[in-house]
């Protein structure tokens, strides 16, 4: 990276470098790069980027962002205090494959742990989520602090949609009980068309990659807390759950 005329410009270059805006900026941590790398690789190459940036081919230029960042999308309904749909989380806990009923109240005795990658050997019965009737609620902004309080969190790909039930193959458990984390699959039941149409709801579509959280009473979060994977959201999950 040298130039034959550099000798003539040493002073200029030194002066320019003294005015380098990044001069005082601390170097980024390797953890930050690692997290961003992992979050990026969670976004499949063939999936459209949901924030309005299409292909991004360098030689023809990036397209302008046509929609606000996702956090602003649900910040708007938050301000408007719109109703959101809530999805009732029902977990099939038994290793025999039977349903154990909905999670209610505090987490199960096997307290949640975080940042657990799926292993190929795990083969417990699927966790089943069930969509309940929409309820009135307010959207809260997605934040790392809010995510951190979620007892259940995972990343998964929708492998099947049949009727109102979607099946996700879990790629990573960020938080959950030991029983939950033993499962490879999660099923979401009762995803109504009404729910799918809500921009702040969760529209699970086959082939889509999602980050999902659920609160203590067993409801899957909406309002952007549970949504299709984006680097931004994945980064927030990683930071919230240390994964």
């Amino acid at each position: 990276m040298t130039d034959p005329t550099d000798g003539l410009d040493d002073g200029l270059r030194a002066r320019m470098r003294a005015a380098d805006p990044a001069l005082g900026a601390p170097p980024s941590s390797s953890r930050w790069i690692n997290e961003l790398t992992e979050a990026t690789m969670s976004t499949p190459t063939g999936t459209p980027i949901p924030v309005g940036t299409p292909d991004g081919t360098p030689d023809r230029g990036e397209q302008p962002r046509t929609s606000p960042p996702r956090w602003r999308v649900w910040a708007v309904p938050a301000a408007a205090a719109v109703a959101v749909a809530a999805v009732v989380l029902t977990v099939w806990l038994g290793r025999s494959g039977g349903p154990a009923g909905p999670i209610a109240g505090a987490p199960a005795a096997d307290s949640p742990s975080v940042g657990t990658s799926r292993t190929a050997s795990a083969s417990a019965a699927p966790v089943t989520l069930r969509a309940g009737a929409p309820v009135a609620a307010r959207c809260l902004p997605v934040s790392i602090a809010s995510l951190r309080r979620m007892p259940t969190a995972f990343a998964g790909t929708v492998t099947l949609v049949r009727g109102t039930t979607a099946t996700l193959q879990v790629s990573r458990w960020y938080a959950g009980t030991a029983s939950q984390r033993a499962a490879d699959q999660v099923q979401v039941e009762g995803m109504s068309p009404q729910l799918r149409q809500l921009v702040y709801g969760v529209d699970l579509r086959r082939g889509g990659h999602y980050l999902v959280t659920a609160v203590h009473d067993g409801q899957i979060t909406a309002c952007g807390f549970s949504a299709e994977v984006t680097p931004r959201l994945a980064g927030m999950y990683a930071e919230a759950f240390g994964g």
Partner: protein
Amino acid sequence: MDRTDREQRFTALASAVGEPVRRYVVRRGPPDLVDDVMSEVFLVLWRRLDGVPAEDPLPWSYAVARRCLANARRGVRRQAELVEKVIRLSESARTEAASAPDAGRDELLHEALGELSDLDREVVRLWAWEQLAPREIAAVLDLTPNAASLRLSRARRRLAARLRQDGPSAGHRPGDGRRR
């Protein structure tokens, strides 16, 4: 978890270019856009991994960052303009704090850079800040190496001449009509 070959290649690429590209973005973008822009850059690199030059991925990555930054700026143009003003102020403040006796020099430099065309200014920045050679600058800016070299020489000449006009010790010449 086993890594695919593609994931291994991307991890290595991210490790190699992540920090320099972040600094590139820090140098040119409002602080509150850095994370968003970096997310977009990584996403483009991930999606276009097969097109990233294996032997010298950095200029290509800078080119991606340049476009992502331009997109981000367009998306938040009004905020960006405001923040840019703040950045300029903070740059001046940082410079003053770092080298108070020479504070005027950096102000002059900033003015001199501002008198260059956008493209020439970026050529000089890539040369000085990213320390790229003309052929690498050409890759970032989609120029021919010859055009990049000519632009760089011309921009450096103009910059040096402009700075000589005021001189290191004449930073605040009274009555200098060129000052804004």
